[in-house]
């Protein structure tokens, strides 16, 4: 469309669609890409693997014309490509699905997709012109220029988008405003946006970070179909499982450096992990037996509503003892967020009681929960876990700033606050911090921000730690680190309430396991007693009849309570 497919005879036909050579991109104080090469063949799914902050997104923003590289060349379809702005990339046939969706909630699906392509209204389209004087007038350049600005024809694009959606089996209402769509649908709109522009190369930046496993599976099926239709795909990810299951080749970046490109089939997961992290990564977690102590959390009959006033929790009982990890499994949106926030004290329950170490705190302020030894790692680390515009130092003491070691009741002792923050940054291996007083929390990558939040919450040696999705969206190195720290904290006698959608994580870490479905605990068990399959079924509400399985073991008090609770609910 925009490029001649008739190659001049001297050019050797090549299978390479894209060649990025020796790309260098620096930001003040950081080399984000240090002589990185990337070659993508026609019709392949090419993985771009690296930890958070390894430079994957930067490289792709260079390719999409959003960042100007300091050095390096880009050849696309055999021709040198100069990219000054995203429009140049779009014109060349490169589409990108960003990690944070580039959609405008107020506008409709169609409007979002045609935005920027200046579709004139029907009377001014080339094929509608016909013959005669009027047609000549309407096809003249000035009239077309005016029409492309001062009119808007959404009818034809809407039909084309519907057709594309049907072709790939996307269930998206093309006239609905984007704010009414869920995350999976929004991602499909992003893909439609690229397809609508007839891209040859589609870049997906960590597309599964926001998806449920089922949605992710669907996405990969879509990608396979796109590749069958001749597209090439770059898949940016830090999930080894995804790389192994869908990519043909993979390029690994580590701290801005190009570690190499390999055929996916020739390497195994641990080799990839080693390339990515630079050392061996343990996938096995060693969990020593501990003796549990007194209950640190006893929540009884807790109900709660979400921000829109919809009931999300109905009469939930949860107990966590000192020195145990209680895992909560569930599909996103089944009340985990409300349960986590309620027991951490940041959301008031509509009914029920919450006791922290024997102290009733149901109507208490978050401050009293903090004072009582409750730590909280919230689900949305940018929104609720930190104050993005404040420095790492301020964020590090956000819960304990009243402590004597940081000054008296009037003045801060910034020296000791800074020392404390630096210590946490070192202890928890928070990378990307050159000065705790000037680096803002929001500038840390996801994994490093999570380490900082965890450092803050654990430095207080809490009695109860509520951790909601602590490893979501972070790279394997950071995941390993976070899990080890959670276990370490448990061994030191902290009761941990762990919410996760990653069943492997729950089975590896938990001492006891609860399954939440539609605001109720539907299964109470332990990792030894149950299977991933059973938990999976319960998470999706398919296991009402199987409560009796748990009932069969009267020795476990938690299980007994579950069975009672189940009956009294009916």
């Amino acid at each position, binding site marked *: 469309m925009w490029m001649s497919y008739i190659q001049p005879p001297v050019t050797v036909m090549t299978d390479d669609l894209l060649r990025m050579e020796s790309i260098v991109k620096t930001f003040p104080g950081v080399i984000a890409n240090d002589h990185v090469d990337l070659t993508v063949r026609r019709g392949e799914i090419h993985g771009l693997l690296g930890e958070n902050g390894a430079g994957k997104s930067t490289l792709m923003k260079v390719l999409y014309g*959003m960042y100007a590289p300091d050095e390096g060349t880009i050849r696309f379809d055999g021709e040198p490509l100069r990219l000054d*702005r995203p429009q140049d990339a779009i014109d060349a046939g490169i589409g990108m699905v*960003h990690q944070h969706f580039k959609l405008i909630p107020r506008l409709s699906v169609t409007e979002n997709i045609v935005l*920027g392509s200046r579709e004139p209204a029907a009377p001014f389209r080339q094929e509608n012109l016909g013959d005669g004087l009027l047609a000549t007038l309407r096809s003249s350049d000035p009239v077309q220029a005016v029409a492309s*600005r*001062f009119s808007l024809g959404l009818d034809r694009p809407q039909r084309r988008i519907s057709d594309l959606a049907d072709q790939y089996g996307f269930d998206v209402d093309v006239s609905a405003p984007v704010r009414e769509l869920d995350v999976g649908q929004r991602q499909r709109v992003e893909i439609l946006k690229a397809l609508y522009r007839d891209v040859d190369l589609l870049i997906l930046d960590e597309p599964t970070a926001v998806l449920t496993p089922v949605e992710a599976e669907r996405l990969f099926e879509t990608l396979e179909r796109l590749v069958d239709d001749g597209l090439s795909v770059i898949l940016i990810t830090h999930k080894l499982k995804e790389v192994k299951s869908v990519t043909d080749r993979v390029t690994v970046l580590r701290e801005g450096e190009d570690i190499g490109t390999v055929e996916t089939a020739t390497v195994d997961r641990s080799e990839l992990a080693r390339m990515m992290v630079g050392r061996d990564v343990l996938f096995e977690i060693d969990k020593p037996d501990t003796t549990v102590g007194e209950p640190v959390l006893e929540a009884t009959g807790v109900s709660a509503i979400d921000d829109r006033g919809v009931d999300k929790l109905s009469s939930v009982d949860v107990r966590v003892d000192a020195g145990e990890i209680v895992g909560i499994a569930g599909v996103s949106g089944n009340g985990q967020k409300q349960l986590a926030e309620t027991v951490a004290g940041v959301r008031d329950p509509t009914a029920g009681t919450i006791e922290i170490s024997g102290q009733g705190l149901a109507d208490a302020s978050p401050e009293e929960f903090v004072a009582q030894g409750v730590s909280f790692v919230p689900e949305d680390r940018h929104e609720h876990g930190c104050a993005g515009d404040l420095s790492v130092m301020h964020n590090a003491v956000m819960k304990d700033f009243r402590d004597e070691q940081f000054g008296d009741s009037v003045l801060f002792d910034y020296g000791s606050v800074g020392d404390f923050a630096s210590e946490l940054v070192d202890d928890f291996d928070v990378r990307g911090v050159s000065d705790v007083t000037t680096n803002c929390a929001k500038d840390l990558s996801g994994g490093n921000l999570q380490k900082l939040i965890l450092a803050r919450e654990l430095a207080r040696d809490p009695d109860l730690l509520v951790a909601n999705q602590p490893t979501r969206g972070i790279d394997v190195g950071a995941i390993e680190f976070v899990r080890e720290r959670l276990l370490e904290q448990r061994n030191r006698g902290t009761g941990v309430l762990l919410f996760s959608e990653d069943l492997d994580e729950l089975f590896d870490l938990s001492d006891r396991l609860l399954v939440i479905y539609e605001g109720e605990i539907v299964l109470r068990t332990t990792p030894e007693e149950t299977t991933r399959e059973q938990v999976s079924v319960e998470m999706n509400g398919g296991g009402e009849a199987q409560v009796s399985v748990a009932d069969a073991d009267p020795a476990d008090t938690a299980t007994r309570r579950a069975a009672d609770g189940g009956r009294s609910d009916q």
Partner: protein
Amino acid sequence: MTDASFLIGLADATVSASTVLILAGLGELISERAGILNLGVEGMILVGALSGVVATVMTGSYWIGFAVGSICGLLTATIHAFLCISLKADQAISGIMLTLLGTGVTTYFGQQWASAQFTGFPDRTLPVIGGLLVEIPLLGPTVFEGPATDFVALGLVVAVWWLLTRTNLGLEMISVGEDPETADTMGIDVFRMRYLAVLIGGLLAGAAGAHLSLAFNGIWTNNIAAGQGWIAVALVIFARWRPGRLLFGAYLFGLFNSLRLRSQSLDLALGPESPLAGLLNPVIEFLLNPAIMSMYPYIVTLVVLVATIVLRRDDDSAQPAALVQAYSREAD
């Protein structure tokens, strides 16, 4: 019949008074839909009003005066655009600076024009159908007879609505006001689009000023805007960033304004025979005090702000998501 003539006079004054709010409000609305808050409306109105008078006196043509006033408003807005879009300065500070600048400059240069005589916009009717429309009782003479700028303003309400909802340009303007980074990835030149919106805003504010001096007052006086620029800013919030509601709001605020000007002749006090007279008359007197009445537009705007938040009707008509946010590509 004094009541009827009072009503007609009031309606007529309301329509006239609302034109300046419609013009300035539409300009501010476009600017804000593209993400740039411009608190310099008052200053731009003053610049437009004075330069309109100067050009009219010098050329003898009020249409040239209107055009010059509009363009001088646009030039004033260029300062704001450069500071806020190119230099990413704080929009509130830059806008207030613009108002102070406009006030100072027009007060200094306006002295010698204060007594200037010129022919302003005469009242007229629409061509062809105007003669019939004027015959409509009450509505006819109030809405369909007035200076040409009144009709221009009404036409612009439709034009701006069309621009924002039915054109590619409007879609792109809204997108840079909602999420400039997304707009950028879609190949839209965010800077150019925002400049365009701010300059249109200045053009319309300048037009509002020129209307004020050339059609509404027929004379230049110091600080002729008298806070109407601020009311226009409030009006955009009141209208929830929609042109249609802006027209309604402009009439409502125009009504407050003409009521205020007529508050002397408004005698709503209860007669001495009424049992509540002693209690209510001071309240009525307070409510009809011109100084108190000049606050009504702001009070209504506050009520609307509170109501939209309390009723949570914010999602479909709320303010542009990226309002007041500067954009630069490599800073995320």
